[in-house]
């Protein structure tokens, strides 16, 4: 039987086992929305801005490992989604974004709500398609999900003109996809894996530098086995947190611009460095020239060959899925008798403990003002470290990463690569849909939260009991911090004036609002909020305006050039 293009779209999503579509209707997608109305295979979540649709789909994907789906209309609907698409692209998150397009004959005519979506998104998608023939819809959507979720994952846009959703074609969903131009590898080259293991066994000062690839390839278990088997120190990037339990003594904390002293020093002074699903980006190693260390050998495991040898030279490149390569390495180590030199390792650990004893994350616990770090520590305690935590971008994001000790993967959800303010709240919605019973918190700032605050309405409509932890210092804190350190205290446009009464704002959306001004009230308020299982609670913590994120490596410097508190 022949189906319309719109029916085919909806059937394809059902075939892919999609649970949620985050979207916003409009002219070019009316046919698709009409079919959504008639079906019950997946739930449509009406957001209040298309950017939030992409972020919510993204949050869902990060929390589950499944592909998130967003649906937007042509023109402004599509462009509003672009920030969300770019966010997912930078962090390698699998998304399929379906955008409406003006009817085929109107393309190129500057039609109402027309924009070249394929052109606009080309630099920030893994791939994109314009479907010009109804007969191609099913195969294109099948390919879109395949491309988004395999290899190094990423967003895929499928742009569908309105007339194509009206036309009819026979529907059959392709069982499998084969593309001669796209065949991602998963298994590491056996010779290289063997070389790497040998190098590791001979290491005197080894270091495991783990990134988002560990989380994306579901390799937390393999990583933990691998690290414990060898007894090596582990650090993680912002994106990799939770890939290795933060509570474990082998974990040296996050590295990079706001990483711990011990992790950054160990990175710089190790003799064998294993980069596992991480890409040596500027916020992690700073300046590659400063990072260079004579005699240090580097093993790099990544599914994306283009990420290897991009910023630093590598001695043993291994292209493959982190999960498979680590499993293979564990097998090789177990099969052999050789173990790393225990005396050398002991000396190395003594050095690391010495660095650790610097206690680089200490802060003033007797302050009469609420310290943001304290809020996160208490929140960690009260949620027993089990919450899913999303964040926006800025100081609060760094404090969340530093002080909420993530023990499980896919629990820390933030925009690392693009650094998108406004990500946290919609992403938290996606997480809560994925895990309706779980505690989901959004740690945010008063700047970031205002960038997608309209989503409080979506939260109300779908009864999402999120906990919004607003660390309100009345400043764009990270901007303020840079202005303090590098711009002679000239706080140009970083003061957040005319803030709304967040308690009333939350209440007007139908939620619970709280304002906390005293350090002594923090714990009680958090307990009360997290006990309200059925309600969204918006907690406005009035924090110390002058608190900075430490340690800090100034941009362009090396890992051993940290500013410490």
């Amino acid at each position: 039987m022949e189906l319309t293009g719109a029916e085919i779209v909806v059937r394809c999503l059902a075939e892919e086992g999609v649970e949620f579509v985050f979207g916003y209707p409009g002219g070019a997608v009316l046919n698709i929305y009409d079919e959504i109305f008639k079906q019950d295979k997946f739930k449509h979540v009406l957001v209040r801005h298309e950017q939030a649709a992409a972020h919510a789909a993204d949050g869902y994907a990060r929390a589950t490992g499944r592909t998130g789906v967003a649906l937007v209309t042509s023109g402004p609907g599509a462009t509003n989604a672009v920030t969300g698409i770019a966010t997912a692209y930078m962090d390698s998150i699998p998304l399929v974004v379906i955008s409406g397009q003006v009817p085929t004959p109107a393309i190129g005519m500057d039609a109402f709500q027309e924009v070249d979506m394929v052109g606009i998104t080309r630099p920030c998608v893994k791939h994109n398609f314009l479907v010009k023939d109804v007969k191609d819809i099913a195969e294109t959507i099948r390919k879109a999900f395949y491309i988004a979720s395999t290899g190094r994952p990423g967003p895929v846009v499928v742009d569908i003109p309105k007339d194509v959703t009206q036309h009819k074609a026979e529907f059959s969903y392709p069982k499998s996809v084969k593309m001669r131009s796209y065949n991602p590898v998963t298994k590491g080259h056996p010779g290289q894996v063997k070389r790497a293991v040998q190098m590791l066994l001979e290491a005197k000062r080894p270091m495991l530098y783990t990134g988002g690839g560990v989380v994306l390839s579901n390799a937390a278990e393999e990583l933990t086995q691998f690290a414990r088997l060898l007894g090596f120190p582990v650090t993680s990037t912002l994106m990799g947190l939770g890939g290795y339990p933060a509570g474990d003594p082998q974990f040296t904390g996050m590295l990079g611009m706001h990483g711990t002293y011990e992790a950054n020093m160990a990175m710089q002074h190790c003799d064998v460095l294993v980069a596992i699903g991480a890409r040596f980006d500027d916020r992690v190693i700073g300046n590659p020239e400063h990072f260079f260390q004579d005699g240090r050998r580097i093993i790099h495991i990544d599914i994306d060959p283009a990420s290897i040898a991009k910023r630093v030279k590598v001695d043993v490149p291994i292209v493959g899925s982190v999960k498979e390569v680590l499993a293979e390495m564990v097998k090789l180590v177990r099969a052999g008798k050789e173990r790393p030199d225990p005396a050398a390792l002991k000396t190395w650990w003594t050095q690391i403990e010495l660095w650790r004893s610097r206690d680089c994350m200490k802060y003033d616990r007797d302050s009469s003002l609420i310290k943001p770090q304290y809020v996160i520590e208490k929140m960690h305690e009260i949620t027993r470290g089990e919450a899913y935590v999303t964040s926006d971008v800025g100081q609060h994001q760094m404090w969340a990463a530093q002080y909420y000790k993530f023990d499980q993967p896919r629990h820390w959800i933030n925009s690392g690569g693009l650094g998108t303010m406004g990500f946290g709240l919609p992403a938290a919605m996606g997480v809560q849909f994925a895990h309706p019973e779980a505690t989901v918190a959004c740690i945010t700032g008063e700047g970031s939260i205002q960038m997608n605050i309209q989503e409080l309405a979506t939260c109300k409509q779908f009864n999402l009991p999120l906990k919004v932890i607003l660390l309100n210092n009345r400043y764009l804190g990270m901007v303020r911090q840079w202005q303090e350190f590098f711009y002679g205290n000239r706080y140009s446009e970083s003061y957040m004036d005319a803030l709304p009464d967040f308690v009333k704002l939350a209440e007007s959306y139908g939620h619970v609002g709280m304002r906390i001004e005293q350090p002594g009230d923090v714990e009680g308020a958090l307990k009360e909020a997290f006990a309200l299982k059925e309600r969204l609670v918006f907690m406005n913590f009035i924090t110390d305006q002058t608190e900075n994120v430490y340690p800090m490596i100034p941009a362009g410097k090396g890992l051993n050039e940290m500013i410490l508190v």
Partner: protein
Amino acid sequence: MRHIISLLMENEAGALSRVAGLFSARGYNIESLTVAPTEDETLSRMTIVTRGSDDVIEQITKQLNKLIDVVKVVDLSEAGHIERELMLVKVRAEDGLREEMKRMSDIFRGRIIDVTDKTYTIELTGAGHKLDAFLEALDKGAILETVRTGASGIGRGDRILKS
């Protein structure tokens, strides 16, 4: 270093702009780019002449390989290869210049493919430097118009780029 990169890609709308966009977005340099469908019309073959250090060229080939539409990439400069470029030059061919232009065209093994009483259009094929040499050998004032295709390249001997 100058490199000549050859690639096969799906002959689909937008494939060219993905390659061109990649070069501009990542700040790679394109000296010339030629593209046309192959004997298998579902595939296009592209030749890109670029310059960069070994690290940059490695990144270029990796990033090109990463494009979903790209089937195969090879850096032809890594081994024996042949490159050719076609140029059409319209020159003044009046009175005294007429004989001179014909002679120059013959010397460079060009062919005159269009004639008026005042102009010749000369077709010349060869490696880029040969075309450059021809233009340099001509009196600048005699050149009315030039158009060049950019280099196309192919590996020598058994070296074959196939899907």
